[in-house]
């Protein structure tokens, strides 16, 4: 078990090495290795149940791993002494089901973590939250409760809420899968904006067109292993593995 080491910008900001994870008898991840450089956008695609979501949930220690190593900015996630709170301050996450706090308004949802976790002053936090609301194009919805917002709007609040913690890496777990088709685009635009501004993003997605457009690198997983990976330009046209070819032919 390795421990936390110093990190320099020439090293991957997220380094996943030979990760194994099983739930009881069920092996979900069977030796996954991925390196993500700062500012990179990577997309993980693959059939349902291939372990994509489990993999990104391991990056911020929502799931623990059985063996291998995940380092986020030099911090070893697979370490009994891991300071999970420190790790999670570096890693933001957006979920398929938004998971906004229903008893708080959109603005309060965004402000809560910086206020309570980082203990930042109220004025500063509120100013930042209003800027984030603007950034995800939700001006006018500050005092709406999640129940009053559409799925797409809720998901954008969830993105802003994560960004309020100034994370260095953002994880997106099938964030458009639960959305109505007409609201998918507004969420994708918000993510694209983030990616273009240099945020390191790891996405699990079924939006192939989007993946092709924004990803620097695409990983295809099936049954717990990475079958194939490459930059989108070659990945979508020159897939070599028959499993990738089959998946792409079904989805494209």
């Amino acid at each position, binding site marked *: 078990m390795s421990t936390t080491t110093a990190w320099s910008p020439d090293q991957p900001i997220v380094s996943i090495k030979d990760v194994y994870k099983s739930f009881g008898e069920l092996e979900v991840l069977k030796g996954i290795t991925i390196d993500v450089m700062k500012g990179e956008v990577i997309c993980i695609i693959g059939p349902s149940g291939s372990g994509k979501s489990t993999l990104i949930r391991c990056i911020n220690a929502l799931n623990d791993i059985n063996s291998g190593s995940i380092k986020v900015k030099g911090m070893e996630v697979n370490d009994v002494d891991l300071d999970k709170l420190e790790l*999670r*301050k570096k890693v933001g996450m957006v*979920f398929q089901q938004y*998971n906004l*706090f229903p*008893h708080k308004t959109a603005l309060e949802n965004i402000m809560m*973590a910086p206020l309570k976790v980082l203990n930042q002053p109220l004025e500063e936090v509120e100013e930042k939250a209003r800027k984030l609301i603007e950034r995800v194009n939700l001006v006018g919805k500050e005092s709406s409760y999640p129940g009053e917002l559409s799925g797409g709007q809720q998901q954008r609040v*969830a993105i802003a809420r994560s960004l309020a913690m100034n994370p260095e890496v953002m994880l997106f777990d099938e964030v458009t899968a639960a959305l109505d088709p007409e609201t998918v685009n507004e969420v994708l635009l918000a993510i694209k904006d983030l990616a273009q501004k240099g945020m390191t993003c790891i996405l699990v997605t079924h939006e192939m067109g989007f993946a092709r457009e924004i990803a620097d690198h695409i990983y295809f997983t099936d049954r717990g292993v990475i079958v194939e990976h490459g930059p989108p330009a070659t990945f979508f046209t020159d897939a070599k593995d028959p499993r990738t070819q089959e998946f792409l032919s079904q989805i494209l």
Partner: protein
Amino acid sequence: MKLHQKPNMPTDLPVLKPFVVAGSKTWSMETFGTITADRRILIACAIFLMAWLSVDVVYAQLQSDSSQSAFATLVKWTPLMLLGPPGQLGGFVLNIVVSFIAMALGTFMGLWLGLGQISLNPIVRRSSWAITQLFRNSPWLVLLFYIMLLMPFRVTIGGVEFDIPGWWKAAFALSLPIMANISEIVRGAIASIPTGQWESAESLAFSRTQTIWQIILPQCVKRMLPPWMNWYCILTMSTPLVSILGVSDGMSLTQDALAAESRSEFLIPMYLWLMSWFFIYSYPIAKLTRRLEHRFAVNE
């Protein structure tokens, strides 16, 4: 024989038809319907009418007598039954005071016990569970006897002696089953919050304690309020139990009044009179609980 016969087709098999008295209106479940708000008020009025009638009956019966009328007797004893002896806390008001104290104590202890039930520490979790089960499944009266006999009637704190009034002990005893039931309500409400809430809070670097107090529990309040109010009503209805242990509550003083009058005709009107106070007090709470349940169920 065809298995799927059309309804209303003649058949030679014996069929049990709804009983209808010739010439009468047909009764169905719809006739009774659900108990609507209007009907609840009707029921309330009926009970009051009953109380009033029984007073009247006794009044009429006693008119011929030379002694005081039933109505005048009721009026005479009402201040005692309601407020207790002059200068002392007692009567129906004491029932309410005991219910307040027991509820406040029970809620406070129950919240912590409920949180104990979801503790990550197995010792805390199991002992909280055991305490909850113990007090949830014990008869209230037995608990009352236990506490009344177990707790001292006088304590010395820093050289000063304090008397512990019986009703304090009674309130504490009644708070124990409330504590256990609130503990279950807290545990259940927390369990009913979707795991996504925990996960998103965790991913925002909230600690477990912060997650519970700032994200989970505030969402539980709405879910816990109706059962909490329900338990308050049950508790209030149970406070006359303390009369068995010599606390001068409404029940106890009603018995005293009856003993002083020593006339069996007064039994029914006096107890009805006392009962109607409990009813007037609890009925609006029960009604509000139902309204809240309905509203929260819709808005969830």
